[in-house]
């Protein structure tokens, strides 16, 4: 009996040790995998596309788009929209607001704008308005392609919609006249800045600002709502509240607080630096801030498909004249940089326009299922891809004769079938075609790191030295290439 008991005990002990072992191993594996729980929290805002915007807001969007944004006329292309997302926010009292991000050409990189559209709890449409963010500490706020507004030091200006359109009109005229005169925006109806010292966000940085509720100690009466800003920085989405004084004599915003879906909270003390009839500008309700998708200027994937140049070029009438454009996206705008900058190695491509037909083509290494690496000193098969609606920093255009068009089309149809970063890459392709059109583009070899070839950075700077004349038009305004237009018969 004692032996049976002993055996049973041993059996349980063995099994127990085994399970303990499993438990330890599994728990150890989990630790090593360094897995963190995905943060899930219900929020009252969402990302929608342009097409999902309620139709009642389309007039404003169309107004901006029609008047200040043109894919076919580069000079009119004053605004750059983030086409990827509109931020929708339904606040606690059921106001709904939408935020559309846009940039204005030639504005400093640390400035971004949001068009705010909204309706109140009863469904009544509100006056649209514009919020301008000027981020003084851009390098701290914009990291890895994302904004972290909790670290922002700078100013927030609220502009009424129609005065802002007047400003855009003037800006557009200035662009047409090619003058360098600076233009002053309409006076914002409210403008605030935090002067740098008082940005805080728990877990991310220091906070020297007390909770706005403590402002009561300073005899300032205030009330929440009226507004708020929802940011979506790629990982956490934040709801930012604008705090206004309830005292009619102090009818202005004096602090901003926010809380994010990742649990962080923060304060941004604001010191007014402009006119402050803010309740005239902004009605009660939360305001979504849209800083765009991860990249400042997203590129539509379908705009860079591999194409068959023979098929694409069939669209052009070889007996007629056309317009050729060389587009250059520099690694770093207005710089000779070869690699560093937000645009990686950059890109150069060409566009041909004839009547209503437009084609934009670039030279690429082939994308293959079994080749993951590209080496600077190695040669690969090449392919031609479309570059429609593709961001560029500088372009040079020339009207070409039918003979030149034929020569260029022949070159593209029989383009080099090998791609080598050093010996023949995108810039070489663009330079070769430009020179078939008589543009006389230099083919300067740049030697940096392993690179020893023609760089979009240098090509861009060289084109920048050329001035427009009777034969060529040089555009030094950052824009997107026109979209593909016209189909072949």
């Amino acid at each position: 009996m004692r032996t049976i008991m002993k055996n049973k005990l041993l059996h349980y002990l063995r099994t127990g040790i085994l399970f303990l072992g499993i438990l330890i191993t599994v728990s150890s594996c989990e630790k090593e995998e360094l897995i963190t729980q995905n943060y899930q929290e219900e929020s009252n805002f969402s990302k929608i596309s342009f097409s999902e915007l309620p139709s009642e807001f389309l007039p404003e969007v169309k107004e901006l788009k029609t008047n200040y944004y043109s894919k076919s006329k580069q000079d009119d292309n004053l605004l750059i929209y983030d086409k990827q997302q509109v931020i929708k926010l339904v606040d606690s009292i059921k106001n709904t607001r939408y935020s559309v991000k846009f940039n204005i050409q030639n504005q400093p990189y640390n400035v971004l704008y949001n068009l705010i559209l909204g309706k109140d709890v009863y469904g009544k449409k509100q006056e649209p308005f514009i919020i301008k963010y000027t981020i003084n500490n851009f390098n701290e706020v914009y990291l890895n392609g994302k904004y972290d507004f909790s670290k922002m030091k700078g100013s927030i200006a609220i502009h009424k919609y129609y005065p802002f359109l007047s400003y855009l009109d003037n800006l557009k005229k200035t662009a047409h006249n090619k003058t360098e005169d600076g233009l002053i925006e309409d006076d914002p109806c409210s403008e605030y800045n935090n002067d740098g010292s008082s940005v805080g966000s728990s877990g991310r940085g220091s906070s020297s600002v007390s909770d706005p509720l403590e402002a009561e100690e300073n005899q300032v009466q205030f009330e929440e709502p009226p507004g708020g800003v929802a940011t979506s920085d790629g990982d956490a989405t934040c709801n930012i509240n604008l705090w206004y004084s309830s005292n009619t004599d102090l009818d202005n915003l004096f602090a901003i607080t926010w809380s994010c879906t990742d649990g962080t909270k923060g304060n941004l003390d604001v010191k007014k630096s402009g006119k402050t009839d803010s309740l005239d500008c902004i009605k009660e309700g939360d305001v979504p801030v849209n800083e765009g998708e991860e990249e400042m200027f997203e590129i539509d994937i379908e705009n860079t498909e591999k194409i068959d140049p023979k098929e694409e070029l069939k669209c052009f009438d070889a007996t007629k004249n056309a317009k050729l454009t060389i587009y250059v996206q520099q690694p770093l705008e207005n710089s000779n940089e070869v690699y560093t900058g937000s645009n990686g190695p950059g890109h150069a491509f060409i566009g041909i326009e004839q009547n209503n037909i437009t084609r934009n083509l670039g030279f690429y290494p082939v994308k293959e299922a079994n080749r993951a690496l590209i080496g600077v000193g190695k040669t690969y098969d090449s392919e031609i891809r479309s570059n429609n609606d593709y961001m560029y920093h500088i372009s040079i255009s020339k009207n070409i004769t039918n003979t030149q068009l034929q020569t260029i089309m022949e070159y593209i149809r029989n383009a080099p079938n090998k791609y080598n970063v050093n010996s023949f890459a995108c810039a070489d392709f663009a330079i070769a075609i430009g020179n078939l059109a008589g543009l006389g583009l230099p083919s300067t070899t740049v030697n940096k790191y392993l690179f020893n070839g023609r760089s979009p950075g240098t090509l861009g700077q060289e084109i920048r030295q050329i001035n427009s004349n009777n034969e060529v038009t040089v555009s030094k305004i950052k824009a997107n290439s026109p979209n593909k237009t016209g189909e072949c018969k």
Partner: protein
Amino acid sequence: MKIKIIIALLLYISCVGIQRNKEAVLIKEFIIKLNDSKVSSKSILDNFIQIEEDKDNSLSLSDRKSSIIEIIEKIRDPKIQGNSLFPKYALDSIKNFNIYPLKEYENLSKYKFSGMNILREDAFILLDDKKKNILQYFLLNKEHNKIISFSLFVKTDVAWFLEY
């Protein structure tokens, strides 16, 4: 019999865990040293990177090794703006080194990769703490004990790992 099955299961779980852990440890160590200017670029090259003679490459092995050192130094240079080729991010904001195979988080990548057949086995990524963004991409060798590439060559939306 049951015990044998449990033991087999235990061994399998251990192996998978150790395997996953191997890449995570390698990449974590590399990232820490990459961002530590006290660690020489040469030692990072020697200890973490696999680079071999390549008759198809017109550049010499020593030139290619020099390029890795230059890239490391550029990454460490605070004046240089980071990009896919010189991946930079605030390391002190990372609480957990979330390192996973790219294939598990392919949907988070904003690039279309050339060579997906290879990447499905050998490409790994570092995710941010919320596992919503890819901070850096790594291509490991077949044995997964060295890094072949830690930067990308991106043309438009198409990406290749840069071969040094």
